[in-house]
């Protein structure tokens, strides 16, 4: 009950962000449809070869999911830490700690709200993209891009939430706590493709790119997300600790 109501509060206060996401999402989809119409009946159809048109539509098809996904992801990443900041300013943080709500519920609601926003983004992508695929006859998806977006978002969630829960101002937070958390997260991200790579004579960066894109792709992905999931849990525990001990 407590968690449910607290999640409701987080989402209610993120309402503006969600509406902005939906608005931008609709505009992206509309833009893609207009491009499609132009490719079928307009100037694009008139001045381009069929192969070129196919490439344009494939590119739109590949990047539309990323755009839709990243809008929700980035908004989610931004909305909840901002909410923590506002909670501090308006005194909700102190109020909730003076109530019977446990730190793990207060923090848990924030993590849950972010995950719900992620799920919302995924759902949006799964609803909108098939419609475009049907209309355009394409079904290219830039999986690497999608995974990179999710990877980026989880990474920022991992260090943003404890950061904002710990500090009274963003500046102070950035100054003191971002460095170690950032370093740990970075090690995770770099370590994943490294462990998946076989070190031949290639330059390290080539190995990273190659393994990410071709080689042991799924293995690298699993390791990256495994590490990020562990970091997410550590981040959650750290946040609870900050709320309990540091206030």
């Amino acid at each position, binding site marked *: 009950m407590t968690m*449910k109501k607290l999640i*409701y509060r987080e989402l209610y206060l993120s309402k503006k962000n969600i509406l902005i996401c939906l608005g931008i999402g609709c505009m992206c989809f509309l833009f893609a449809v207009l491009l499609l119409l132009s490719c079928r009946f307009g100037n694009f159809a008139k001045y381009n070869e069929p192969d070129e048109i196919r490439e344009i539509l494939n590119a739109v098809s590949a990047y539309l999911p990323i755009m839709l996904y990243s809008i929700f992801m980035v908004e989610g990443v931004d909305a909840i830490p901002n909410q923590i900041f506002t*909670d501090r300013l*308006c005194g909700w943080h102190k109020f909730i*700690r*003076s109530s019977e709500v446990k730190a793990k519920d207060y923090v848990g609601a924030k993590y849950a709200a972010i995950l719900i926003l992620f799920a919302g983004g995924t759902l949006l992508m799964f609803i909108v993209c098939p419609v475009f695929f049907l209309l355009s006859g394409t079904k290219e998806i830039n999986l690497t891009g999608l995974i990179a977006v999710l990877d980026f978002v989880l990474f920022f969630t991992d260090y943003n939430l404890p950061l904002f829960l710990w500090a009274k101002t963003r500046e102070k937070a950035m100054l003191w706590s971002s460095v170690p958390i950032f370093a740990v997260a970075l090690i995770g991200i770099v370590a994943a493709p490294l462990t998946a790579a076989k070190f031949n004579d290639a330059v390290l960066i080539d190995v990273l790119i190659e393994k990410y894109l071709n080689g042991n792709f799924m293995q690298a992905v699993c390791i990256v997300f495994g590490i990020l999931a562990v970091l997410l849990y550590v981040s959650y525990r750290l946040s609870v600790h900050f709320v309990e001990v540091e206030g």
Partner: protein
Amino acid sequence: MEYENAIEIKNLTKRYDGFTLDDISFNVPKGSIMGFIGQNGAGKTTTINCLLNLIKRDGGEVRLLGMDIPEKEYEIKKYVSAVFDEMPFNEELNAVILDRILAGVFSQWDHKVFTEYLDRLQLPSKKKFKDFSKGMKMKLQIAAALSHHARLLIMDEATTGLDPVVRSEILDIFLEYLQDEENAILMSSHITSDLEKVADRVSFIDKGKMLLSGVKDEILDDHGIMRIGKKELADIDREDYISARVTDFGADLMVADRAEAARKYAGALIEKTTLEEIMLFYVNRNKTFEAS
């Protein structure tokens, strides 16, 4: 729950760089209002934060409603309400949404009581809090604090900055709340006139030290202002007064034992005093200061 004192603080200590809350002890019996007075920065908020376990204390014991903090923290907090100087609810919310949220925050939340308070305090339920006046925001906070059947109300400078009409309305609600003798209020403020109206007991803190704590009427009866001429000041024993205020017309001395002072300095004019004056003279204790 069996307890005599809603709050029991023994030797509470909290150290910061440049400030120490030093060995604070006082009790708030159930059925009473304790006025917690002191200047800004005296340590009132630090004491309240320690009471609510919002900050870790360095020493001493705290018991609320007969239970230890922090051992039974969450059990205790079911029956405790805290009201702060600023409204803690996001300004994008309205009372209807807040009602839903607080139903999840407090296990004993009473929607009916909250709605009744909204009606009584004439608070619009669908208006966003950003459009509320300061008085309305405070009333809303009080309504929320009293809508989950709390046994102890802890208020930190909650009436500061409010106009007399709103303050009076809020004080009336507190007196009504204390009709149930199981309830108690700790009210921190530097507006002593409010406390003079409603408090049963008073604790006075200054620079982290407790200077006075006891029944308000006894404190007011015991203390007095002795008005004398400037030349007579030298004839008064230093240990007989807390501090002296020099005016254009003479000197005012705060005495802690009015009856004894009247006996010793027969003929001297000794008048009743107020909490505000007691606070002023104690803050300037052991010195002679000029009236502003």
